[in-house]
């Protein structure tokens, strides 16, 4: 029975993907992509990776969907240029065949993976209690592969600065992204007033619960960011200008906290990013909180894009 379910789900995902590529108009393609993201989240649940399902739904489908929608709205026309640049049927056929063969090779490789799948699950489980954290994925993210997470947080900060640096010089210092008119009434302002409080509670809860159950800083951060974007779109909350020091410290707080605690590891424990066993959990939670704040701030700024308004 479950095989049938997996089959249907798999076919649905591939079907939506094909439809997203095939459809001519951009807008339906983006809608298709959001659907694809959500179906993929379902697949992750089927694969037993709830953490990743949360991330995929929040980031992969939600946030990416939002920025794609923003882009679709602004990117009009250019149809003639696109048609001119479309490769000829022969090239498309060749590309199709080659991509097919690559996919096939991939499938063969996956199918011929060794049967007793080599896994780190046991090792992670054995070392987990030292960290005082129950969720293995958070353990891996925060401790065992801490450097990956640190570098990735820095990539987020870096992406924000890269996006800001795309703005024309005269716009520097202004408010990031377009400024939406304040909506005194109407459904959007209702939603923008009602949902954020609940959203913030849920976001913080998910970030908090990440230590022991599926959840974590990225998922929590994304939800907080979503609430921020909702309020910003409804015009209720004006983003602080690019030059404001508070905003920048918010974006930078997470990775800096991570490095700070990591360096402390030299003093108390036996190396960078290692936690003294006694106070491992509070330290991890401290870092998680700072990271959630940073991730939320970074995501809002990334969705907002480079400063376009007048100087604040």
């Amino acid at each position, binding site marked *: 029975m479950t095989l049938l379910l997996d089959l249907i789900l798999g076919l649905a995902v591939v079907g939506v993907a094909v439809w997203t590529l095939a459809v001519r108009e951009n807008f339906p393609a983006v809608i298709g992509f959001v659907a694809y993201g959500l179906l993929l989240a379902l697949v992750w649940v089927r694969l037993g990776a709830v953490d990743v399902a949360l991330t995929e739904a929040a980031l992969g489908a939600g946030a990416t969907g939002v920025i794609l929608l923003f882009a679709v709205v602004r990117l009009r026309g250019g149809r003639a240029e696109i048609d001119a640049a479309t490769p000829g049927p022969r*090239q498309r056929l060749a590309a199709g065949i*080659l*991509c097919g063969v690559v996919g096939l090779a991939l499938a063969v490789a996956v199918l011929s993976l060794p049967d007793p799948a080599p896994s780190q699950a046991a090792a992670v489980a054995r070392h987990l209690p030292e960290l005082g954290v129950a969720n293995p994925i958070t353990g891996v993210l925060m401790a065992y592969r801490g450097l990956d997470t640190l570098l990735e947080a820095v990539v987020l900060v870096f992406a924000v600065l890269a996006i800001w640096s795309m703005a024309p010089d005269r716009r520097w210092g202004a408010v990031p992204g377009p400024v939406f008119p304040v909506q005194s009434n109407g459904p959007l302002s209702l939603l923008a007033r009602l949902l954020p409080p609940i959203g913030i509670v849920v976001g913080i809860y998910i970030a908090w619960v990440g230590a022991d159950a599926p959840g974590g800083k990225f998922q929590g951060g994304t939800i907080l960011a979503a609430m921020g974007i909702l309020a910003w779109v409804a015009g209720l909350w004006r983003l602080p200008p690019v030059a404001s020091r508070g905003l920048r410290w918010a974006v930078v707080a997470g990775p800096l906290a991570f490095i700070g605690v990591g360096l402390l590891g030299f003093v108390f424990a036996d190396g960078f990013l290692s936690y003294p066993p006694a106070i491992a959990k509070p330290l991890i939670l401290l870092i998680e909180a700072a990271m959630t704040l940073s991730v939320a701030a970074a995501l809002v700024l990334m969705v907002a894009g480079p400063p376009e308004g007048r100087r604040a």
Partner: protein
Amino acid sequence: MTLLAHLLLLATILAPLGLLATAVTAQGRLRLPALLVYAPLPGLAAALIAGPAPPLVIYADWLRLSLDLDAPGALLLGVAALLWSAAGAYASAYLPGATRFAGWWLLTLAGSLGVFIAGDLVTFYFAFALVSLAAYGLVVQDATRRARRAGAIYLALAVLGEVFLLFAFALLAVSIPGQSLAIADAVAALPNSLVRNETILLLLLGFGLKAGLVPLHVWLPLAHPAAPMPASAVLSGAIIKAGIIGLIRFLPFEGGIAGWGLALGVLGFLTAFYGVALGITQRNPKTILAYSSVSQMGVVMAALGFGLAAGDAATPLDAARYASHHVLAKGALFLGVGVALATGARRAAWIMAPVLLLVLSFGGLPLTGGALAKEATKAQLGAGVLGWLSALSAAGTTMLMLHFADRLRAGLAETPEASAPPGLILPFAVMTAGALLLPWWLYPAAVKFWPALWPVLLGALGFLALRNWGGRLPRWPEGDVLIFAERAAARVAPPLAERASRIEATLRAWPSAGLALLVLALLLGLAMAVAA
């Protein structure tokens, strides 16, 4: 004694470079042209007394740089230093203010003398590169369009020569068993190295290009006339000998590669007669001299070739003797051309007499340096057919040189009373005396009268014939073969480069790049699947 010898060897290269260093300060730069005459003196001294000293080894740990002087090297170093010094004095008078020219001059001088005393591969390559590349500065000194074209062609072929040599030296370094890079070990290891033929071919190409072997001589008739007078003198006199010393040092004369010797000999004679054939069609005296250099170098290489074929160990010294005479005589002639162009008809006799004597000595007139030079290569080129060939080439050379004298007389200054400044005449006089007398001191030998004389007479007869019916000879452009090569290249090169950039442009279109990526992935996958 050996310490003094070593110091002199070092000074031979470092003196010119040191002098160049003084050019950093402004007034140092002004005095530079005047000091050109002194730069080669340490080289001259080294040639005289450093002969028997053991090789000087520097920086011994991983790279053995060594300077060494054997008999042929000393001989050539001495005469070259003399020519450089005379030409230097000539240049100070001829181009007083040219500081940049003096800079290039000193660089080329350091390289030219360094080539004779280099004892290992790296120093030799460094000196050879220095003399080849720095001479470009001398060629383009006049900054006319013709000079720049000649310079560009010279540089292109010089770099090509460098590349051949780099390749050959890499092969040699590979075949030397130990870590050492000394030339002696390289030559010893050459006959039985597994890449023997390729190495020798590359050596011949590299040094042949420098010395003007037939197909590779094309830059010579372009570069020498384009350079100012003193530069032409050293170009034709001393710098061309870098190729000869290269052949002397790197070819194993104890035998083992007879076939190559024969090939070199035949090519040498071919070059000799080709030089003469082209020379007589030229009008400009400097171009005739350039072709004469090609021809003379042909004779030297023929001697080297047949000596190599016969496995005669004395060949290097004999060839060096012949070449040293050429250094002196050709240098003197070039300086003479400069002096002649500046003197009027009335005073011409003072100049034409020594020029005529030099011209005849080229043909091997008895009692002159030329005869002694021909005598020196008797061992290699004396017997049977070779004897006839060398005699014929002597006749041809005489005819060519007389043609040169005739063209020179036509080119004298208009105003009869004009006379060249002493600064030009003195070096010319010194060089002429050197050309006629030095051989007697360096390699005295009894010269049988008649076998040396009849080629000269035959040559004179040929010249007379040339004077009357010369008009009908075809007017060949300078650098003959090169012109056709350039036209052919003009047809082939652009389409090739055009096609290459078109392919490259198509690859830069997005879909084709994506396809290339995928094809590459599959290619690698297949290659590995086949191997595993």
